[in-house]
Each structure stands twice: as C-alpha cells, then as structure tokens.
C-alpha cells in the first residue's frame, strides 16, 4: 500500500509540476461552463442535462491526453528502468498511476460543482439525479482512464498513445450508440449494447444507480488495468 501511495503522490504532483493539470482543468471547466450556460441563457433553464449529456464525447479527447504520458514518457526517457527495478510489484505501479490520473479527474469534476451549486441556487433540480450524474461521470471517467493508461503502456510515443487511447475509447463508445446498434447483426446487439461505454452512463444519468452499471464500469477499469499490468510485464516474457 505504501508503494501505491508513493507512486500516486509522485504522479499526481508531476501533473501539477507540468502545465498538464492546469491546462486540463482550465479547458474542462471552460467547456463545461459553456455547455451549461448555453442552455442557461438561451433556454432560460437551470439544469445540468447539457453538461452531463456531452461528457462521454468530451472525455474522449481529454482523458487520453491525461494518461498518454504515464507510461510512454517513462519508456521514452528511460526512467522506467529505475522504476521497475525498485522493490515494487508491477501491478502496484499500474494502480498508483491509475489512481493519480483518477485524482486529477476527480479534482476537475469537483471544481465543476460550482455550476451545480448555481443550478441548485437558481432552480429546483432533482438532487438524486445530480448525485447519480456525478457518480456516473467518475465511473465512466475511470474506464476511459484505464483504457488510456493501457494505450500508454503499448508505446514509447505519447502521440501514438494518445491516438490509440482515443480510438479504443471511440470504438467502445460508438458500439453502444443507437446508429451502430441498429445496423449491427442481431446476435451482436446484446454484446454491443452491454459493452458500450456510454449506455450505462446514460442509464445512471436517469437517476437510477443500478448495480449492473457500476459493476460494468468497475470491471472495465479492472480489465484494462490488468491488460496494462500484462503489457508492463511483457518485457520479461520469454
């Protein structure tokens, strides 16, 4: 556990040592506010639907940018060689890095609570839906992060890691969208609709925290973190 916390702290601080964290938070809040105030002024509605609804697509571009450096940079500059010869198990490093990126995401999402506060102040939103929305956002974000992290373990080039992360997330996102589902063969329909990254989020957004949706995101996170650990270990395969 001390290993995981040490890696987590180091990676989290490294986000703030470089401009990444500030850029990420600024843009994330900027876009969120825009999505929010668009509806706020034009439709004269104080609600968060526009904000939550577009998040799967915004995460698609933002999250791989957060994770792309986590392994690719270590490989590029060679620090991985010191890191992996420390008395730490590979999965502890993977977990530490994942939690660090999750912490950054959580900070950004927390900061966007300012918007929620104004909604609560100005209108009368359903509290349950809001809480569910935020939980869904974090769960879905976690899945994106795990996918991005896995992409980063595969290459030493950050741009490749970024594009690989976006493409994997994109594929997993659109297979759950209606236009793909209705064109897919019948036997694929249940698989696609279950695997789609966005579908479970939408059902959480309706204000129902179904354990199936939570299990889906947790297992997506677990699966991609497991793949990341395998990819990191693959240097030792014979």
């Amino acid at each position, binding site marked *: 556990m001390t290993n995981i916390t040490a*890696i987590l702290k180091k990676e989290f601080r490294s986000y703030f040592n470089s401009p990444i964290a500030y850029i990420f938070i600024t843009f994330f809040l900027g876009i969120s506010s825009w999505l929010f105030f668009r509806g706020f002024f034009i439709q004269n509605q104080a609600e968060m639907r526009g904000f939550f609804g577009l998040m799967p697509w915004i995460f698609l571009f933002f999250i791989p940018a957060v994770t792309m450096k986590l392994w690719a940079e270590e490989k590029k500059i*060679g620090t991985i060689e*010191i890191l992996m*010869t420390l008395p730490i198990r590979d999965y502890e490093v993977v977990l530490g890095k994942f939690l660090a990126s999750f912490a950054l995401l959580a900070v950004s999402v927390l900061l966007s609570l300012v918007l929620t506060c104004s909604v609560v102040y100005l209108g009368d939103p359903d509290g349950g839906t809001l809480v569910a929305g935020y939980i869904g956002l974090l769960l879905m974000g976690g899945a994106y992060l795990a996918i991005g992290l896995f992409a980063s373990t595969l290459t030493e080039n950050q741009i490749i890691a970024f594009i690989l992360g976006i493409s994997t997330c994109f594929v997993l996102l659109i297979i759950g969208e209606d236009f793909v589902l209705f064109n897919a063969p019948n036997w694929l329909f249940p698989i696609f609709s279950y695997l789609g990254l966005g579908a479970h989020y939408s059902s959480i957004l309706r204000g129902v925290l179904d354990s199936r949706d939570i299990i889906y995101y947790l297992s997506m996170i677990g699966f991609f973190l497991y793949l990341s650990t395998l990819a990191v270990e693959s240097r030792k395969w014979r």
Partner: protein
Amino acid sequence: MIEVRELTKSYGPTVAVNKVSFEAHAGEVLGFLGPNGAGKTTTMRILTCYLSADAGSATVAGYDIFEDSVEIRKRIGYLPESAPLYTDMGVIEYLNFMTQVRHIPKSERKERIRAVIDTCGLEDVIQKDIGELSKGYRQRLGLAQSLIHDPPILILDEPTSGLDPSQIIEIRNLIRDIGQEKLVLFSTHILSEVSATCSRILIINNGEIVANGTPEELASQAEGEEIVHIAIRGSQEAIEAALNELEFVSQWTHVETTDGIVVYQVNAPQDSNAAEALFHVVVKNGWSLTELRQESVDLEDVFLNLTDKE
C-alpha cells in the same frame, strides 16, 4: 553475492548474452568491459530483474532472479545508462520519492538524503529541478538515488559517461570507497577506467565473457613485452646499425625523422630494462637523447586482442 550460470538472452535472432557465467563477492569492484553492444547492459538489466533471461540461472544476494525479484531489488542500487531521471521533479523531491519507495523509515529519511547529498556532491543543486541540471549533476543524482537505501550491491551502467575529467576521478574514488565493503559491478568501454578502479575485470565481447581476472593478471597475459619510444639526435644509419646489434631488441620500427631527430619504437621482452640499456648506448655513441618513454603492454592490448578476433 552474485552468481551467474550460463545466462543467455536473445533479442529475436540476435544473441545479446551468450552463456555468461561469473561470480562476484562483497568487497570487490568488478569492471564490466567491452565494446559498445557487447551485452554489458543486457547482463546488468537481467541481474537487476528489469529483463528476464532466456536460459541459465543467476542468484543475487542469495535470491534467484526468476523467483525472488522483489527481494533482489531491495538489495541492489541500480544506475541505468545515461542516468534517466524525472526531469519535472526537484532534486530533493526526487530523493524523497526514492526514500518512500525504498521503504526507508520516516525517521531516517532526512538523514539518508543528507548522506547521499554529501557523498555525491549535490549540495549546490538541491534547490534546482532535475531538468535544469547538467549531465554531470544528473549522473551524480542517479548515483545518489542508487545509494539511498545503502544497498549491499551496486550495479552501475557506465557511471562516468558524459562527465568531465575531474568528475570522472571523483566518481572513481567514490566507487573505490564503496567497493571496500560492498559489491560494485560497473560497466564501461573506457579502458583506463577499469585499471584505475577495479579489483577484477570481466571482458565481454559479442555476449560472451572472453577474460576474467585482476588487471595485473590480464596485463601479464599479453605477450609480456615492453615498448620503448626513443627520440635521438644523430645519424640515422649509425643508430639503426646500433639497434640491430642490441640483443634484447626483438623488433624496432622507425617512426619519423624531424629536424635531425630520429624517433623509434623499440620492442623488447619484459624485464629486460630496455630503456636503461638504450640510454647507455646513446651515451656511448655520443648522440643526444631528446625523448625516452617506456610503455608497458597494458590492458589496451589485451582488450584489443580479445575483442578483435573476428
């Protein structure tokens, strides 16, 4: 402390390390010498459990590299080639991170960081970010990182590359000091480095160990010749006639003639005191001696002999 048996590792069709076997014990400074791409780094990566070998076995500090890699990693300090460090961290921040992942108790952390800062001469840069450090300081910080948990085994991959001559001497002295009680294994392709620092040398070429011994042992393996450079002001024919007459001279070559000074390279068997004898010849003939320099056959020749076979 390190026992290696027939270690083999290939990258695709290229065999990087081929049946390497050796032993090393505490109190030794073991120099890994070889041309670039000989397999030094790969061997070190296997011993530090960064990579795994295809065949063979090795134990480090009594633990098997395949079974107990975490136990091994607790007991070694490793400085990879060109000292890769997190450039966005501060020097102290980095060392502090290392004390955490090395499980140094909180109460001792300050003390250990202080100690490595002193040993590695980092005092002047503790306020800086690693990204601002010069190559020499990065190398030192890399070394500091490998020493922070006071490991019994230290593995250093080209620790002096990129340093200026005075820094090289500092690092060499440091390695020698550490090697008094611990095992230091370090690689280099610079010959003078091993003879200056190591108690034992392993010469590795094309993934195989071609020589293993103390610097003196290896030097005496080379044909046992001494070479004398001599520059004389005098008549070339007379000098050459005199050289031909000398019994101990096994071979001589004319190097150059400038402004009436003739320069020769004279080969003679070891312990024949060739330089002294040549001096007497020069004096007897009334020539004047402008240079006399003896070069014993050294590691360089051993190295070239062993690594040039193909």
